């Protein structure tokens, strides 16, 4: 058994927050000086092979975060609701998969939710200063008072996690229960998990625990058992133990090699700088041209020519003369 996290002390000094503003490592649309010393990285380990799909985590998440998901319908599967929503931060996704090697059915049940990437695509995409922060312990959190509801985080996320609320038009996702972690507790889902399929601790502890689990799985014939801690996003602070770590995508579309989309990279990178440069250049070019070339004015001669034309007199010579320059204003 992974040692359970003790219940919080009720003494007043226990309420001291273990991390906060000073530990912000990244802040969306802002330059921050990262804290000199990084907190120990935390992680949640979801052992898919121990999960029985009871949805206690889903219920605990709704309860702890005081979310009010709508009562939906049955769509022919056990997954409910059918997708993450602004009120469903975590969702059990059920996949019936026939193992081609053994021809046996396997019911793969994966708890979906924010992965708390080391290199968070949501934060990268976010245009609102401080709407998304990353603490130095690895938690990526949304700060709703700064969120403008643009949904760029959804496009930035390689895992399709954030959802925009139709009520307050801000983005929602798993907070890794930053409020609980701040007072030394594990996330609500972890607390509720009856089989310790979800454990929480430092990232190093989690990796070590995962190794222990993977050894057991290999002994049971799951040769490709492994840890899902994708390096394409710098590793994550929510990790999975998978029986088939060679093919994550069989677990309800868990990305095989997640990374921030190159399109998002291009958008938030080269496009931004080149775009600003081009616009600035256009404006500067106009200004310079005006300074150098001066205004393009209509001359008296032009007016006279127009008058002559309207009065039906002989039209002026078709070939403009030297006099018809922009400076030529002599009557």
């Amino acid at each position, binding site marked *: 058994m992974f040692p359970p996290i003790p219940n919080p002390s009720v003494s007043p000094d226990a309420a001291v927050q273990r991390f906060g503003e000073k530990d912000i490592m990244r802040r969306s*649309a*802002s330059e921050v000086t990262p804290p000199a010393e990084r907190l120990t990285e935390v992680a949640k380990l979801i052992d898919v092979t121990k999960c029985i799909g009871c949805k206690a985590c889903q219920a605990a998440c709704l309860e702890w975060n005081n979310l009010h998901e709508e009562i939906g319908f049955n769509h022919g599967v056990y997954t409910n609701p059918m997708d993450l929503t602004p009120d469903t931060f975590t969702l059990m996704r059920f996949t019936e998969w026939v193992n081609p090697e053994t021809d046996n059915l396997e019911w793969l049940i994966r708890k979906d939710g924010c992965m708390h990437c080391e290199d968070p695509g949501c934060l990268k995409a976010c*245009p*609102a*200063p401080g709407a998304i922060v990353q603490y130095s312990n690895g938690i990526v959190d949304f700060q709703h008072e*700064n*969120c*403008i*509801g*643009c*949904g*760029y985080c*959804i*496009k930035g996320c390689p895992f*399709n996690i954030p959802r*925009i609320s*139709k009520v307050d*038009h801000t983005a929602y996702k798993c907070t890794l229960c930053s409020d609980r972690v701040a007072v030394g507790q594990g996330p609500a889902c972890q607390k509720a998990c009856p089989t310790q399929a979800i454990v929480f601790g430092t990232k190093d502890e989690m990796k070590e625990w995962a190794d222990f689990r993977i050894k057991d799985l290999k002994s049971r014939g799951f040769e490709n058992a492994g840890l899902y801690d994708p390096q394409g996003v710098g590793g994550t602070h929510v990790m999975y133990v998978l029986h088939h770590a060679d093919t994550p995508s069989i677990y309800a579309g868990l990305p095989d090699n997640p990374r921030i*989309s190159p*399109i*998002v990279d*291009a*958008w938030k990178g080269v*496009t*931004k700088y*080149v*775009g*600003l440069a*081009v*616009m600035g250049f*256009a*404006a500067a070019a*106009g200004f310079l*041209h*005006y300074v150098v*070339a*001066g*205004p*393009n*004015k*209509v*001359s*008296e*001669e*032009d*007016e*006279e*020519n*127009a*008058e002559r*034309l*309207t009065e*039906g007199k002989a*039209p002026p010579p*078709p070939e*403009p*003369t030297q006099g*018809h*320059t*922009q400076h030529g204003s002599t009557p």
Partner: protein
Amino acid sequence: MTAYDQKPETPDDVEAGDAVHPGHPVTVDRYTLGARINHWITATSLVLLALSGMALFTPRLFFLTGLFGGGQWTRAIHPWIGVVLFFSFLILFVRFFRANLPAREDVDWVAHSADLLAGREEKMPEVGKYNAGQKFVFWSMSGLIIVLIASGVVMWDQYFYNLTTIEQKRIAILVHAVAAVCIICVWIIHVYAAIWVKGTIGAMTRGQVTGGWAWRHHRKWLRELVGKGNPRGPHAPAE
């Protein structure tokens, strides 16, 4: 008055309301009141879109959201302004597209564009109501607005989230950003041209230019207008 499409023999670049008033100086009606209102709605929308769009485009300009009542308001109204722009421009397009159809002299004009910039306008060919530069602005705007509205709808999650995939939305965002940069550049050209070429702004404020302005910049158009008003001219009057 002559409607531009009433008579097939009316030149493409003579628009409804275009007319010459002899006098001293000669005045020329260039834009009707409707066209001017249409233009300024479009222009205002475009400016607001540029400001709000740039606020969301780069964190350095995020402070611009203050103009719109904050980030949430900026996010909410930007697409609606886009809708206004789209329809306003659509009407503008219908008004102006015939006069902006390519003409033979455009090639010559483009070939001499360096002369124009250098101030040697006398070397430029006679052009109709719009020169090739203005046509470039018109058609660029038209194309870019279509791209922007289309990509904008894909990004407009509040109403259209479920219609496209995230990958499509990512592409749309990139396309929208690039198109926005382009349209802002086109707009800079457009505004600069209006500032640089004196006497132009009056066309969009009072609706009139002087005969000299028309003679200098759109002589072919002026000739056509004069010819239209003169029974002895090549074209019979409309009435």
